[in-house]
């Protein structure tokens, strides 16, 4: 899967309270949650995002709570992928399970706000079209690729039990 979009840079340890504050955990709708994505630390983030953009973050992205509302909010505000130096464990699970594409790369510091990126998820390659550079990323193991290819965990499970899959 190839993804193209504009980079929005965030720092280290972006936590789940940053991504979606607890007061919004009364909704399960990605669009509604998306309106409040990163509100506490970047009040203008949502207004600056165009559909298809990419978040580029430092280490430990998504640390804190297990709230699946976090990757839902990121999806809901139009972000189509996240690249970070490392991901927190539960956020990692949630992103895989709901089908939010993401990649781990040590070379993200080089990417600037607004750079145009092209991401090859299966190959683990990030191209910076603005700076004409290529970075390597951790490609997912086969098991996770299968879940992603199915469009998330529930679809993957439904396929296993031969239930019809909703997209």
């Amino acid at each position, binding site marked *: 899967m190839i993804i193209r979009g504009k980079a929005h840079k965030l720092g280290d*340890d972006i*936590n789940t*309270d*940053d991504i979606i*504050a*607890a*007061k919004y*955990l*009364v*909704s*399960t709708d990605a669009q509604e949650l998306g309106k409040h994505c990163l509100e*506490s*630390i970047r009040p203008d983030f949502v207004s600056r995002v165009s559909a298809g953009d990419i978040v580029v973050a430092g*280490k*430990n992205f998504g*640390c*804190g*709570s*297990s*709230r*699946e*509302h976090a990757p839902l909010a990121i999806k809901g505000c139009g972000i189509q992928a996240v690249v970070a130096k*490392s991901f*927190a*464990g*539960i956020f*990692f*699970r*949630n992103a895989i*399970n*709901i089908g939010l594409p993401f990649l781990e790369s040590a070379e993200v510091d080089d990417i600037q706000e607004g750079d145009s990126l092209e991401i090859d998820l299966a190959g683990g390659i990030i191209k910076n079209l603005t700076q004409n550079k290529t970075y390597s990323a951790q490609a997912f*193991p086969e*098991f*996770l690729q299968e*879940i992603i290819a199915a469009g*998330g*965990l*529930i679809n993957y*499970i*439904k396929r*296993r*039990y*031969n*239930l*019809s899959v*909703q997209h």
Partner: protein
Amino acid sequence: MGYTISEKILLAHTDKKDIKPGEFIEADVDLALGNDITAPLAIAEFKKAVCTGQSPQKAGHPSIKYDGVPSCKVFDRKKIVLVPDHFAPAKDLRSANQCKELADFAREQKIENYFEVGCMGIEHVLLPEKGLVGPGDLVIGADSHTCTYGALGAYATGVGSTDLARAFIDGKCWFKVARSLKFVYTGKLNKWVGGKDLILYTIGKIGVDGALYMVMEFSGEVIRRLPMDDRFAMSNMAIEAGARAGIIEPDDITFEYVREVTRSQSSAENRRDLASKTGGPPKIGETSPAKLAGHKVTKDKKFGSLKSDSDAVYEKVYEWDVSKLEPLVACPHLPCNVKPASELKDIKLDQVVIGSCTNGRISDLRIAAKILKNKKIKSGLRLIVIPATQKIYLEAVKEGLAQIFVEAGGIFSTPTCGPCLGGHMGILTEGEVCLATTNRNFIGRMGSPQSFVYLSNPAVAAASAITGRITHPEKI
């Protein structure tokens, strides 16, 4: 090559002959937990997947019937726990709707372990109290502090709502087998220093991603002497260092705790309490003694082997003499921003919270009450004390602790997660500063993004409520 305790537990819940860190496995869980903010998503995903009226093709599963009749049933109604504790008692209309979704689902699916307001408590204190988790169990919870049960020698880990939905369907969960970090604590703890300080010390040393995607194994002579409540506080905050689990090998202290829980759950008095007010059978949400009788409390082979092998491989071993440790405080806005309480006496407070899944247990309340007895809190300061379960609430009342808190000028609340995550029962506005016995102090955690949260043990919290500034308990 030997296994760590966490590898053994994972392996025991699969059909595999062997297990190694880094590999992906699917395992059968003993328990799957959700609360009022995480279960609604899981319930919706579950229903969308198997309550569609279509006929599934593959046999051998409660949710998936082969005879063409679609089944909208959870894999095992005894292995699911639903606790409305975060925004409950319902803080507003939408929270009430979420709570109702749990109640309705529990009723439809005949889920025994649904704890309505009146039975409910903070989930990670409630489940051990009810004997629902024990040594060697594999527990998943749609809540990051599920790692708390690691204190009992369970492999307990936080997952998301979709993981929970999947577990509702077939009782399984995917895991990446994590490497283990060993922490060995030696020496002797000072007065006023406990499990909370040990874990704050640890997170301060290794950082909020110092155990990223690893299992933290807490060991050493200090741990061997540590009471259960302090062990729960430690394991509870393993997630704050990025860990998948925070596990303590079960020993005589664990074993005695589990025995005591089983005793108190099946005592005649308790059976009377369990009956509904009309004298009928136990209501939905009250754990049956039969369930607890099935729990492995004897020193059988399973329990005996719940230790890491002497040749188990660890990513890293940390060994620390904690004899000089003082009470610690995590400063805004990360749990690793740790300083001694004695260095923070200039920090003025608007609010103190004593409670949460970290430090809302009876021994926490006893420590706080000992300090607050016959004292008054600082004028203008709000002291909010939240016992974690109804049992703890009643114990605190019986022991006169509730009276101490109220007479000191504080409030004594019904069990709830409440202010810990900025839900209700004590939100901070712009510029306000709170010292809490909770587990997280990110920006905006307890309310306004322009508020400040410090984390401490209950003794520091109680002492600070009196002076109105962060205070070492020795000063009182």
